[in-house]
């Protein structure tokens, strides 16, 4: 993607695309960055309404309550304060300014950290001297990370990392800066705009959840079925074997942070699994793989199978295969699946993939580490279910137990994350940040429930959330979302029983709900109707408490005080 292409895209009106309001503030000329942001928004299917503040107005826009920024009401406010403009200033004033902004401004901020400039005043000795510019810039980036840890709505656009990857000479062009006040080179604008949208998309619930992997010549060098286990190129000897070990180590790190790994390989299943079980240099074990498909069928069909077992969107799947022909088949049949164009030489893969930044997220919780295990348990459940002819018998035999809790400081990160991750079972698709959830938990006008489900196969963790707004005698379901891992288990009935019990005990007369359709939540179109609500039209529903009969389900309640 070149800047020129982005510029052309920025001129297309995208009226039927979802609107995102973006404010851009900078201390250098940002017009071309603004164009790149608009174009990239269009490319990633958003209609960007942009407010670009006049040059160098950051403080005024934030601290003056009548400023254009405050009136604009942005979904995301992007702040680009350059390292360049700090060269002649006191760096120590900067951090207090940012803290003050965070204290007074409500809304999501995307803040550029500081690309390093070694001003060479002290040479390498700068590393031994707190007052040196090099030391101060690095310290500031470190402090910014700590601020970001404390503020869930404060996101860092890591321009320092981008510069590490592409180099300062690529990022900054002195002659252009001298004649225009522009800090970013034209060639780096698409990369920077892309990284901005990685953050925006992730906080809109649009991110990758699963990597589907080919095996032969992708996870190891050679073909297991032809070359034999002992002749595969894998391991820290001479040659290319270490490249595959390092690639697997990276995948393992992704798995440990919550990305599900699946295998889709043209192989005999026994041959493929033997490598995982017997090859001493394999980093990935069978335990790391949630769904393992090795057969001779078409890979697009196999990915459809993986998608239906895991019950996630195609657009959250990344497919990695060394073979360009297989990649092309998947692209043509499943256009939503992300298929990185891996370089011919496997040695180049990791650096290439680092640059693609496919796995952006805006949250991380302890449950992420458990995710592969949970999906493996899900596969066991599915097999178990197939041994029953009667659904009720199956549900009873699962021995399900549900914990119902309020929002607490322990579950807030997971709740925010579930609101961002749930696309299909999500009635109104409101995305909450941790700060939003925190505010709701302190708000007297709201009652919130978080549900965690266990069964004989394991712990599903926190899988459903309802957020209820008290409107005098009416209890309005502002949000109801649930992980699709626990579909068809009776959780909907259990949840409604919980809401109704609360409503009855607190003298509410009716429960009301709303279905707001999106491209992905057709699954719950009839959710309220199926649960006995009466339709009021325009996607609104109500349920009178007086004639509510508790719904049958096979989930034992375990209330937490």
């Amino acid at each position, binding site marked *: 993607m070149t*800047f*020129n292409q982005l*510029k*052309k895209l920025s001129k297309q009106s995208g009226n039927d695309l979802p609107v995102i309001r973006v404010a851009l503030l900078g201390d250098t000329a940002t*017009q*071309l960055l603004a*164009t790149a942001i608009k174009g990239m928004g269009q490319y990633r299917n958003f209609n960007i309404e942009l407010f670009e503040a006049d040059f160098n107005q950051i403080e005024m826009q934030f601290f003056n309550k009548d400023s254009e920024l405050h009136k604009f009401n942005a979904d995301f406010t992007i702040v680009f304060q350059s390292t360049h403009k700090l060269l002649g200033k006191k760096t120590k004033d900067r951090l207090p300014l940012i803290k003050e902004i965070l204290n007074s401004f409500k809304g999501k901020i995307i803040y550029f950290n500081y690309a390093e400039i070694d001003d060479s005043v002290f040479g390498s000795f700068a590393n031994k001297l707190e007052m040196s510019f090099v030391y101060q810039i690095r310290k500031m980036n470190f402090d910014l990370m700590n601020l970001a840890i404390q503020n869930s709505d404060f996101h860092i656009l890591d321009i320092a990392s981008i510069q590490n990857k592409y180099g300062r000479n690529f990022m900054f*062009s*002195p*002659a*252009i*800066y*001298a*004649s*225009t006040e*522009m800090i970013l*080179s*034209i*060639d780096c604008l698409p990369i920077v705009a892309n990284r901005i949208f990685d953050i925006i998309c992730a906080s809109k619930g649009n991110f990758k959840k699963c990597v589907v992997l080919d095996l032969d010549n992708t996870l190891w060098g050679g073909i297991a079925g032809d070359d034999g286990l002992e002749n595969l190129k894998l391991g820290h000897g001479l040659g290319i074997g270490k490249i595959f070990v390092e690639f697997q180590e990276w995948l393992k790190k992704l798995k440990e942070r919550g990305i599900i790994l699946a295998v889709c390989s043209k192989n005999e299943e026994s041959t493929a699994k033997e490598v995982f079980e017997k090859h001493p240099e394999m980093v990935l074990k069978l335990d790391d793989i949630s769904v393992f498909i090795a057969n001779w069928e078409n890979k697009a069909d196999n990915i459809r199978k993986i998608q239906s077992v895991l019950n996630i969107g195609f657009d959250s799947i990344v497919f990695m295969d060394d073979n360009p022909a297989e990649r092309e088949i998947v692209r043509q049949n499943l256009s939503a699946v992300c298929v990185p164009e891996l370089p011919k030489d496997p040695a180049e893969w990791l650096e290439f993939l680092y640059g693609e930044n496919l796995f952006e997220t805006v949250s991380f919780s302890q449950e992420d580490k458990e995710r592969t295990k949970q999906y493996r348990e899900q596969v066991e459940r599915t097999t178990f279910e197939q041994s029953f002819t009667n659904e009720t018998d199956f549900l009873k035999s699962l021995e399900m137990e549900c914990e119902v809790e309020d929002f607490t400081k322990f579950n807030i990160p997971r709740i925010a994350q579930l609101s961002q991750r749930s696309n299909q079972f999500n009635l109104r698709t409101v995305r909450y940040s941790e700060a939003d959830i925190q505010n709701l938990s302190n708000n007297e006008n709201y009652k919130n429930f978080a549900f965690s489900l266990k069964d004989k196969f394991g712990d599903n963790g926190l899988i459903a959330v309802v957020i209820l707004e008290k409107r005098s005698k009416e209890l309005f379901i502002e949000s109801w979302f649930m992980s699709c891992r626990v579909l068809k288990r009776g959780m909907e009935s259990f949840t409604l029983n919980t809401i109704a019990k609360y409503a009855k005990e607190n003298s509410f007369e009716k429960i009301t709900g709303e279905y707001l359709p999106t491209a992905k939540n057709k699954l719950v179109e009839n959710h309220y109707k199926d649960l006995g609500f009466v339709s009021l039209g325009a996607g609104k529903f109500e349920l009178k408490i007086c004639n509510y009969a508790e719904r049958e389900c096979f989930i034992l309640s375990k209330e937490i005080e």
Partner: protein
Amino acid sequence: MTATEILTQLQKIFCDVLDIADIVLEQTTTSADIEEWDSLSHIQLVVAIEKYFDIKFTSEEILEWQNIGDMIKSIEEKL
């Protein structure tokens, strides 16, 4: 490369960057003659020209060109 050849090449670059199919450049053409040629697209033109001819302009050159003729002169000096 002759001045005419440079001019022909510039014409292609201008069409591509400014996204106009039928620009006709002359030695005397200035930014006032082409609506899309503003200070922002000027930078894009500079970068595209530098890339094509594999040259670097100085910041003064970028600021001081009065017309296409001046640009061509700068390019000729560097080739």
